């Protein structure tokens, strides 16, 4: 059985696509056969972040409507043999996304032996977002330390607990909170919500904290998921997150303000 994981948030621009790309790449590099699906019909972006935009021929909607089969539409990642990308349609209407169609694609991927299927949800709570979460076993809730993002995450938690197949069957989706764009310096100065505050408000188990980092923009510029940037704090934090998701116990890092090198040397900090 494949494990289906939705990356969701309610609010747009918080880091879902960045996270989906890093997460799927991380799982594949650890040896798991992984597919990552872009549910953002009409606003395809995952292909760019994964660096495969020029190899898109068919898309998710083509497969759902029977214009192409899954094998034709899946793009094999150039860095890992275990990783496949299913792009969203750029031209079609969201209504082309049907529950039966999504279910069929997920079933086919399961039969093809995929270990993980990562669903990159669009923003909002409409059809695309609803279908991205409907069949999920796990949800990664991406939240920024900012009031509207936290509020929207709580709204999404309500939907995960009521409008999913698992909820309808009286089971529950495993929820994992991922805080992204975290800035320890701003938390220390008192103008950014601290990780502890967000946890207290949302009461969802924490799976990771990704720091605000310039390397995320650089990674998206070059179409290389940031998890492959081993030097960057964001890349390392994403790697920790993937390992925790796979069951390892990994301490959280990058939560404190980094001390200056010179200061450290002078005062031994």
């Amino acid at each position: 059985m494949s494990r289906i994981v939705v990356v969701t948030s309610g609010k747009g621009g918080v880091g879902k696509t960045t996270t989906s790309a890093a997460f799927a790449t991380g799982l594949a590099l650890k040896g798991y056969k992984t597919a990552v699906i872009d549910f953002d019909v009409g606003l395809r972006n995952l292909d760019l972040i994964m660096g495969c935009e020029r190899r898109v021929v068919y898309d998710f909607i083509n497969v759902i409507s029977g214009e192409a089969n899954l094998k034709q539409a899946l793009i094999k990642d150039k860095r890992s043999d275990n990783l496949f990308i299913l792009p969203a349609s750029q031209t079609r209407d969201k209504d082309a996304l049907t529950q039966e169609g999504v279910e069929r694609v997920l079933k086919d991927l399961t039969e093809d032996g995929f270990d993980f299927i990562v669903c990159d949800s669009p923003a909002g709570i409409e059809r695309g977002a609803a279908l991205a979460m409907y069949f999920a076993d796990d949800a990664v809730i991406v939240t920024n330390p900012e009031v509207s993002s936290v509020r929207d995450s709580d709204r999404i938690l309500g939907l995960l607990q009521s409008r999913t197949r698992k909820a309808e069957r009286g089971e529950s989706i495993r929820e994992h909170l991922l805080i992204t764009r975290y800035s320890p310096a701003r938390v220390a100065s008192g103008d950014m919500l601290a990780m502890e505050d967000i946890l207290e408000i949302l009461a969802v188990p924490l799976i990771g904290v990704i720091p605000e980092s310039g390397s995320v923009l650089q990674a998206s510029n070059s179409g290389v998921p940031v998890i492959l940037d081993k030097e960057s704090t964001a890349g390392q934090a994403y790697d920790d997150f993937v390992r925790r998701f796979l069951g390892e116990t990994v301490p959280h890092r990058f939560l404190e303000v980094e001390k200056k090198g010179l200061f450290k040397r002078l005062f031994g900090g």
Partner: protein
Amino acid sequence: MGIFDYFRTSKPKTAQVAKERLQILIKHERIDRSGPDFLPQLRNDIMEVIRKYVQIDEKDVNVQLGRVNNYEVLELNITLPDRTAQ
């Protein structure tokens, strides 16, 4: 107020304000979600009626559906503003 109090009563950090606002808001939104569909509308209607007489805030009206023995109980909690303050 002495000079030392002046330094102590600096205004709260915005992150603290954000946390308190979110806690109140999310508590209300969770109650609205957990009850029957008409609860949010009921709460708004009640608020409108009361506002004809006194000015109250969103957070001063609490509508909750609970269960006591075998009865469903609609609990209404309305905090009226301090009259001396008006």
